[in-house]
């Protein structure tokens, strides 16, 4: 026995500090270990030369690589995008493939972590020797991955990113937007707030690239429309408690609360607003509010909440109904706009490869930078000189009972919005 008593409180402190370190280090280490549903190339199968195989004669599959956040805080949204990629893979192979060759998607899990995404794309391009790449989910991961795409000159459609920062520096040649920039997400909401005569607005957001971009854009939009921004604040990713923040917004008497959020924090903000009896006249969230999961998780509490959306299943865009049907058949759930954006990116990539007629990344890039085409998204695919999307039409939805209703812009509207939002205590 023996040797057990020598342990003092000091030892505990030292150990506890060490333990904290171990946990932190492990958090980083895990990322490299996990790979998603990446498929290993079969032994003995000749790997096509990276990006330049020319598409002739060869019948080996065309490899399309991407990382998606299928675990971590953006997992729920990321999965929608991944499913769209998988649907396209299935459909294009059923149609006889791309340039007459089968398509093989290689998707890895970046765990919602930008540096992991960066590593994975580097791996996809150099080890897996993929022929084409598609974008990851979230602006933060895309920002990190874009440098890899630039380095290896692989054109990338940013199927899950919209922060204008990605394009504003003007030095990116291989990154192309698929839907409207984050800064413009709340154009509809701010316009509606102004029309209703609301004067004060609070803008809160997660402190990562995309949410910050939506928040900054919203503040500017609100100021332009004469609304007074009474609170502007950020909170960390994976935040567990926003009650003090809600308290602050409540004390500032904000009539409008806009959350630059992803799904988990949108749910948290709504729940805690109710718990603390904060009753804004208009409540809106960027990502989250437009997802079917929002209504499922919150039930009646989702009612009256606004959200920007990039796409809705009811839209009459070309091929949309077929897309929704095929998606529901394959995954047993309704697609959301992240699915549609992923699918749209696949449509554009397919068109680009077909137009060029070869796996020539340089010519595909040139086509992507100048082409215009319609996809399942409203508006059209059309980018500016920096690759930033300018042809897409963002829309705004509101939860009314169990349904999301498109309320803005008039061109796409299915109904009129309901305001002001009743107090929590006056709802049944």
């Amino acid at each position, binding site marked *: *026995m023996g*040797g*057990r*008593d020598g*342990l003092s*409180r*000091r*030892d*505990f*402190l030292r*150990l*506890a*500090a*060490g*333990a*904290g370190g*171990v*946990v932190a280090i*492990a*958090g980083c280490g*895990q990322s490299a270990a996990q790979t998603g549903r990446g498929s290993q190339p079969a032994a003995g199968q000749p790997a096509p030369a990276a990006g330049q195989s020319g598409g002739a004669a060869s019948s080996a599959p065309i490899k399309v690589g991407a990382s998606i956040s*299928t*675990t*971590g*805080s953006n*997992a*729920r949204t990321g999965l929608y995008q991944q499913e769209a990629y998988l649907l396209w893979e299935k459909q294009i192979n059923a149609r006889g493939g791309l340039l007459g060759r089968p398509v093989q998607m290689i998707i890895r899990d970046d765990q919602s972590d930008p540096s992991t995404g960066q590593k994975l794309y580097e791996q996809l391009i150099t080890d897996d020797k993929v022929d084409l790449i598609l974008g990851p989910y979230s602006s933060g991961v895309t920002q990190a991955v874009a440098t890899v795409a630039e380095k290896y000159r692989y054109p990338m459609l940013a199927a899950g990113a919209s922060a204008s920062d990605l394009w504003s520096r003007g030095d990116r040649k291989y990154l192309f937007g698929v839907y409207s920039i984050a800064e413009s997400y709340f154009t509809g909401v701010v316009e509606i707030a102004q029309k209703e005569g609301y004067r004060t607005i609070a803008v809160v957001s997660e*402190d990562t690239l995309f949410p910050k971009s939506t928040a900054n854009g919203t503040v500017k939009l609100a100021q332009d429309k004469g609304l007074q921004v009474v609170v502007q*604040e*950020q*909170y*960390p990713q*994976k*935040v*567990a*408690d*926003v*009650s*003090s*923040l809600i*308290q*602050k917004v*409540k*004390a500032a008497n904000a009539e409008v609360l806009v959350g630059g959020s992803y*799904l*988990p924090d949108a*749910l*948290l903000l709504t*729940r*805690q607003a*109710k*718990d*603390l*009896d*904060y009753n804004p006249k208009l409540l809106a969230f960027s990502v989250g509010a437009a997802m079917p999961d929002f209504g499922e*998780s*919150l*039930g009646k*509490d989702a009612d009256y909440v606004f959200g920007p959306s990039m796409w809705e299943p009811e839209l009459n865009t070309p091929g949309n109904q077929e897309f929704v049907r095929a998606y529901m058949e394959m995954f047993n759930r309704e697609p959301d706009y992240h699915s549609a954006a992923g699918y749209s990116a696949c449509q554009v990539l397919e068109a680009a490869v077909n137009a060029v007629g070869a796996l020539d990344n340089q010519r595909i890039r040139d086509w992507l930078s100048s082409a215009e085409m319609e996809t399942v998204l409203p508006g059209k695919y059309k980018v500016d000189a920096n690759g930033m999307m300018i042809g897409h039409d963002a829309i705004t939805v509101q939860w009314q009972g169990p349904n999301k209703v498109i309320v803005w812009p008039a061109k796409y509207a299915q109904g009129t919005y309901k305001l002001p939002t009743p107090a*929590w205590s006056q709802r049944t």
Partner: protein
Amino acid sequence: MVGADAGALALAQVVISGLLLGAVYALLAIGLNLIFGVMRVINIAHGELLMLGSYATFWLFTLWGVNPIVSLVLVLPAMFLLGALLQRTLVDRVVGQPLLISLLLTFGLSSFLIGVALNLWTANYRSVPAFSGSIVVGGLALSISRVIAFVVALAITLAVWYFLRTTRLGKAVRATSQNTEVALVCGIDVARIRLLAFGLGTAMAGAAGSLLAVIYTVYPEMGRTFLMKAFAIIVLGGLGSFGGAFVGALALGVAEALAAFAWNTQIAEAVAYAIFIGVLFVRPSGLFGVRE
């Protein structure tokens, strides 16, 4: 005048929110403290035990509509048994071994449990939409879910305190915690006490998880955030001090809430770490700990 009143009201509201949450932190920290006291094992997997409690409550609620408070009737004994099982099969092997071994074991256990949860239940964020809304008392909005969590956490904490203070078995736990060898000499069945302590600690973590499920979101990696908070609380309150951990937990809850209100939520997240480091520098024995 109205402005000042509103300010004071908002401040009171923030402090109350922090206190309500602090009681749940206490439940977690006291369990961790208990395990360390009896076995000298720092249980890195404590946060994951909390996570399991959260999922138990989530599934009971989602599948069968079991009220989260009622679910404690199942969660507490189930987690106690799980803890006893873990102790018997795994943790007991590292008691008395160099501390690195026990750190590695419980760290491995922690990663394993996260992996299992990711595979079984995916990374989705879940919530238990029971007890939403608030009771408004004199202008203060008290979140119903937090009030319930506070009351239950306090009740369980008091029950454990009473058990350790007054019962024969509880005294044996404290004796083992103070000096294992002497306890052994006095005829205390130390192996059984360890089983009891790990079971009890696990049950408390599970109960904290059940209560947090009602307030926050449930996901496989939720445990790590709370583990850090528990460490900070123990360091603040003083190791081995039941009362210290309790006061430390309430203090952390309030400090976080105030920091978020005065500055922002980003700073609030750092409060636990700041306390951790600050106490190590200024008073390594903690507020209620005994200096050696």
